[in-house]
């Protein structure tokens, strides 16, 4: 036994430390899980973003021609430029 013989007080301290650690880890997991759920539900998330909110603007009756053609050309050039 000798040096390994601990006073009971260390067991109590360890119980506090381990307990608190578990509580904190559980709290982090909880907040992360909540974030995932809240983002998936997506309600009440629109904050002020220094520009007119798209959802508040009147619907465009005739949407403009598909801008999709520009995107594929733009994307490769930027990646090439960055490399």
């Amino acid at each position, binding site marked *: 036994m000798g040096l390994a013989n601990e*006073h009971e*007080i260390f*067991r*109590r*301290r360890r*119980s*506090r430390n*381990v*307990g*608190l650690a578990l509580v904190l880890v559980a709290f982090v997991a*909880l907040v992360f*899980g*909540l974030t995932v*759920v*809240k983002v998936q*539900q997506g309600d009440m998330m629109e904050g002020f973003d220094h520009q007119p909110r798209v959802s508040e603007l009147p619907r465009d009756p005739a949407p403009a021609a598909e801008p999709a053609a520009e995107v594929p050309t733009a994307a490769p050039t930027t990646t090439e430029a960055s490399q």
Partner: protein
Amino acid sequence: MADIHAYDAAPEAEFGDYVALLKPRVMSLVVFTAFVGLWIAPIDLHPFVAFCAVLFIALGGGASGALNMWYDADIDAVMRRTQSRPIPSGRVAPGEALAVGLALSGIAVMMLGLVANWFAAAFLAFTIFFYAVVYTVWLKRSTPQNIVIGGAAGAFPPMIGWACATGGISIESLLMFALIFFWTPPHFWALALFMKEDYHKAGVPMLTVTHGRPATRRHIFAYTLVLAPFALWLGLTSVGGPVYLAVAVVLNALFILGGWRILRRDEAAAEADHYAVEKRFFKLSLIYLFLHFLALLVQHGMGAW
């Protein structure tokens, strides 16, 4: 073997002592009733959100328990049943319990606001205030009606659960409140009849001490009569149904019968059989509340009215 007892004067707390501060047994009632209130509400919450909401309602209840233990440490030290609680036994310092209670209250209210809505959070804050200040500080030591009004604190959780889902109050949540509110006095007075604690020594004016035991018996019976209509009325609202009503009719008949039996006894008869009837009534009161809320849950699963 020679032991060195260097720390005996100040026994250190372990984690369980801080858990004990939150009164886990009271918390189990809070968890169950808050969950039922939340689950049977007409608006469905995401299961994980519901879990978190119930968790933080329970944490708020636990925090108010810690505040109660901080303020009542002097009473707890006198009564045998409570002498081994963390503060009277010296394992947790009073100031520490106060800090834990206040910190957890803040966390619970803020998190419930973020999880559910701010009306439910404000309701939880009010409940903590009601239990820790109105009941513990103002009423408990000043009036024999302490249990009656303090019972409101225990009756709020299903309303908070309902508010988490719906964001408001309605007749169903008010009736769930009434069910617990009018159930609390007969439950605790039955306990007071057979526990025979040193309430007078501790300075707590229990009805058994201030008005005597026969008056307490009359009060128990009267409350079982008041309770029954509210329990049945809940069965006629949108959360009720045939299953709930059947359960409620049987349980309330048994409860009134138990109250009647308590009323018809005098102390000599009770002493003779060691308070068997009172103890049975106390057990019945626990089953009574549990089965009512379980029946609400089952009725919700089967489809209410």
